[in-house]
């Protein structure tokens, strides 16, 4: 069974990826990387990652978030994060990555921020 399910939705020109499962070393991180690379290949570079369903993330998963962020930036796009669990928020605070990512609790607010 896969560690993670990634579903895609479109809201205007913003692509929302709903992540459900674990973003950890191995399959979870690879699945996120593949999804981001595919979107960039399709010219979709405004990306909102909904992490509400991510019950677990490790340092490899955090690294993959960073890798996604830099890959999207490199293509002139923007990647933002939505609905962090307390645990992910704690890990991003420890790593000082809350200073890097734009993070939102409300989807409508996140979508507005892209325009």
């Amino acid at each position: 069974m896969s560690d993670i399910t990634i579903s895609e939705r479109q809201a205007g020109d913003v692509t929302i990826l709903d992540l459900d499962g674990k973003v950890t070393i191995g399959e979870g991180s690879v699945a996120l990387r593949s999804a981001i690379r595919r979107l960039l290949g399709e010219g979709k570079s405004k990306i909102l990652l909904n992490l509400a369903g991510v019950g677990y993330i490790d340092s490899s998963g955090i690294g993959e978030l960073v890798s996604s962020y830099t890959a999207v930036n490199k293509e002139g796009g923007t990647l933002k994060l939505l609905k962090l669990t307390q645990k992910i928020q704690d890990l991003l605070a420890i790593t000082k990555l809350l200073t890097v990512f734009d993070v939102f609790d409300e989807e409508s607010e996140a979508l507005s921020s892209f325009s």
Partner: protein
Amino acid sequence: MAGIQQIKLPSRIESVDEAALKADEFAKEQGLGDDFVSAIDLAIRESVANAVKHGNKFAAEKTVDLTLARTDEGFEITVRDYGTGFDIDEIPDPTNPENLLKTNGRGILFMRSFMDVVEWSNHEGGGMVVKMIKRQ
């Protein structure tokens, strides 16, 4: 109640999940709470991943030796690899601004953040040992 469990794991990524699962079962048997188990889980995942990737470099003939112990002090984890070792002082601080966008190097920070003691040593029979304690 004191207890000890020793596990030898192959040098592959799947061992990270296996180690975490064993530790979760063991910690719950010892009556430890969710927050405690969650901290142990993360520390074990990061340390076993380091041992597999950076210590043993995925070498099939090398194992990762995990010891879990419930002690009077709390919970003690040791993870041994059979690699050539490293100098902990040479590991870059991932929270330095110039390292923030690096895609790796945060595992040790997590281990130190969630455990009360994290110490590395060279094993006399070769390889590195990381010992971690979570006090209760």
